[in-house]
């Protein structure tokens, strides 16, 4: 039992460490999601940024295909990191429950 609980403790420590790293990586990714409005057949590019309850729209001007891809890649990266953090939170919650450890 001791070996088993020590393994779970190690898992918990690892999950906490990995979560910290994902949080710090997430903070490094620029915020905002690309919004393309089609006005009279022409695409207009905006960056939507959430500030509290409000979403601010920032006009970006004309974007090249490479720039659009860059914005989309950043969005995907943020989504993946958020999903990872969500799953890590579930792992941490589960391990804490099994080990009967209260969160700090």
């Amino acid at each position, binding site marked *: 039992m001791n*070996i088993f609980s*020590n*393994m779970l403790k*190690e*898992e918990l420590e*690892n*999950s906490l460490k*990995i979560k910290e*790293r*994902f949080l710090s*990586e997430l903070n490094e990714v620029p915020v905002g999601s690309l919004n393309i409005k089609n006005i009279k057949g022409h695409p207009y590019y905006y960056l939507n940024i959430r500030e509290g309850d409000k979403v601010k729209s920032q006009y970006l001007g004309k974007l090249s295909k490479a720039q659009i891809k860059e914005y989309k890649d950043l969005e995907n990266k943020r989504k*993946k*990191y958020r*999903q*990872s*953090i969500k*799953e*890590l939170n579930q*792992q941490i919650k589960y391990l804490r429950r099994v080990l009967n450890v209260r969160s700090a």
Partner: protein
Amino acid sequence: MSDQRELVYNVLKKLEKEGVLKYLIVVGGWCVFFYRHHFKEAQMLPPIRTRDIEFDVSRLKKVFHKVDISATLKEMGFIEDFQASEGFVRFLHQDIIIEFLAPETGRGQEGPYKLPGFGINAQTIRYLNFLEEEIIAVKYKDLSIIVPHPAIFAIHKLIVSERRPLKNIEKSANDVRQALAVLDMLENMGEINKIKKILSGVPRGWLKLIKSSLVKTKETDRLNRYL
């Protein structure tokens, strides 16, 4: 756990598409998982319980095209974890941690094993070259995975179990558990001569470590069978 296995498969598949999988040797606890899949006598092997998947990268020097492994893994949602004090990188994901290893070529060799063409620096460790002595290809789904021969794997586990610091007593116990399970599998396969042959070739110092590990776990009868 099934998510973890799916992720490992996806990583391996990606590495295969990049043309580097056949040059990587899976070492560490995941070998047991692949043995379980490959050998019909391996059903009694313990299931995988490790988050870390380790690759020996020393054969990558045979690859002449550049592959940005770091970028490939980042695209899959991994983050790079640079160990600044030692200069090597690991790749973290919520389900697995990928580590790249290379044999330490001299006692106290300083710095990581650099692979600039692949965007990674590997950690150097002792005894890894032993795992490279005899490798086999095992089938996993549609992939061919390179792993050490099970006898080499088991003997290596016994050696490293004795070299771990005292604080890693659980890891050490896990090493021995895996080693004994793989040795049992080999005996069931009628491969005891293979174990004997490998043991007859290891340096005396290593043999001392192997004996000590088996004595501690009250498995001395194996010594009579193997030596």
